[in-house]
């Protein structure tokens, strides 16, 4: 029971620190980074659900992110739908596309799946570029409404500053984390991991891999779309760039470096890489060059070659050694 207690304590402390953070750090730029780190955490968690837990490499994940962002933005701007509902609507529309992509993806694996998912994202990116009436093309949709204020009795919360969004995104990350933890720990999650480890073995115990893959594609897309909606109402600008390949590559790098197929990994990866990339960006003023992505690429290669379990694996090993020594 003490291990469990320690876990709960750890959670409470971490949560308290995260809640108090904006009170300590007042810098708006820092808050901006924190919000982006949160959005990328959700994206990475959702990508990892597919890649890490079912072994399917989706290289078109940014498409779901973009679909969520456009849906939420367009609904708010053209129908006046509450952005709060828009977030979920974005997720649902993305999920619908996920289901759509899931069907052809069922029969494919490896490079075939990778290139099909890239193709899916690229086609949608071109649609976003060229359906000018709806998306204003490459200019993008600017002036996406902010999240509407919440009023409960006398308590009124407005969403204007980065700090306000920080709390929204924190809540969203916790929501995502809760859902994914529940899913992974349940019969559903064990089924996914069984399929990933050995598909024929999974079939032999009655698992129908196709139907599960389809379900995971859909769920993974939902959370990516949800993250996209958050981004839309935070950045207030939605452009076809969101669907571009490099966004998926960023997410993939974060998941890999954090630790594929774990829950802590994507969080660790997204947060540490967002911070790292900001640190590198500030170095740009000194070095006069942008080495951010060079470092990304290098880290990704080195991670796969030398620490396949990612940061989570490293921490586990260090922890085991510390425990072993004491």
């Amino acid at each position: 029971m003490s291990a469990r207690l320690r876990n709960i304590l750890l959670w409470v402390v971490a949560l308290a620190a995260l809640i108090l953070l904006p009170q300590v750090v007042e810098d708006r730029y820092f808050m901006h980074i924190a919000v982006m780190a949160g959005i990328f955490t959700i994206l990475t968690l959702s990508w990892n659900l597919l890649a890490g837990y079912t072994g399917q490499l989706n290289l078109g994940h940014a498409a779901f992110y973009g679909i969520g962002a456009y849906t939420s933005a367009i609904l708010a701007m053209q129908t006046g739908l509450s952005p709060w509902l828009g977030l979920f609507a974005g997720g649902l529309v993305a999920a619908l596309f996920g289901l759509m992509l899931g069907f052809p993806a069922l029969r494919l694996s490896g490079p075939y799946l990778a290139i099909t998912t890239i193709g899916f994202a690229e086609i949608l990116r071109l649609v976003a570029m060229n359906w000018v009436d709806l998306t204003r093309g490459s200019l993008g949709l600017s002036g996406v409404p902010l999240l509407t204020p919440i009023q409960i009795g006398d308590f009124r919360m407005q969403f204007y500053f980065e700090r306000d969004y920080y709390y929204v995104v924190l809540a969203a990350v916790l929501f995502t984390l809760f859902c994914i933890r529940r899913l992974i720990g349940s019969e559903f999650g064990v089924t996914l991991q069984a399929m990933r480890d050995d598909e024929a073995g999974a079939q032999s115990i009655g698992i129908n891999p196709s139907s599960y893959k389809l379900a995971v594609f859909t769920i993974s897309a939902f959370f990516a779309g949800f993250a996209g909606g958050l981004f839309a109402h935070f950045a207030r600008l939605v452009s076809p760039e969101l669907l571009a390949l490099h966004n998926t590559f960023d997410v993939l790098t974060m998941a890999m470096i954090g630790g594929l197929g774990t829950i802590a990994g994507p969080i660790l990866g997204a947060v540490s890489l967002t911070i790292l990339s900001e640190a590198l960006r500030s170095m740009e003023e000194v070095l006069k060059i942008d080495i951010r992505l060079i470092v990304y690429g290098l880290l990704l290669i080195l991670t796969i070659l030398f620490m396949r379990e990612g940061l989570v694996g490293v921490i586990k090993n260090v922890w085991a050694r510390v425990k072993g020594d004491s």
Partner: protein
Amino acid sequence: MGAILTTDRLTKNFGGLTAVNDVSFSLEQGEILGLIGPNGAGKTTLINLISGAFPPSKGTITFEGRDITREKAHTVNTLGIARTFQVVRIFSRLTALENVLAAMVDRKHKGPWSLVWDSFFRRACALTEDKEACATADSLLDFVGISKYRNEQAGNMPYALTKRLEIARALATEPKLLLLDEPSSGLNPAELTGQIDLIQKINAQGTSILIIEHVMKVIMGISHRLIVLHYGEKIAEGEPKVVYNDPLVVEAYLGGDSDAQH
């Protein structure tokens, strides 16, 4: 009693090769039926056909009076046939317990979306904290004698024990018929005896068994009847002792007494 499984003129071609040729047999309720034959005789192909890994080219398979010839592997399992593999196919990154828990899910009635629903509204926070499910899984691990490895990643278990884990996993789906593909390959003599006991224990609980085995000590000891395949065809069938002395079978195993030189 009556037959639980019947195959009628089952045939499987791979390209030009006929791996299983016109094989008909039936397996009685509660029986241990041994399937033997030299390397390449089509034994594993036969099990793959029955378990639905791929469909036969010709012929039918009937299980409990129901035609399962074209059913997929996962459906075949939910109907009550479980199997193990020649080279183990366990879930290496899951623990032994989770391997069994994964197999215990009621897949006949629950698809992916109802499991998604369940994960939020039914079970304990995590499956491994579900006392009832864990108790059942534990009793299965105990039954095959690997309780000690409950929380070990299956990929880290000794090979001989992963064969038992695979059996536990198959039993977790509550099969009426168990297909065992060389359950004792790669085991040493001491482990062999344990494996024989285990198979007999499973049979004693009423599960019918079809077993491929090349270790004669095992197959002769436990089979009620034997079927011999050679070049994909059934060349003998009957009581172990009779089959053992059948000249056709001896010929199949030792080769013909012929040579171009003679």
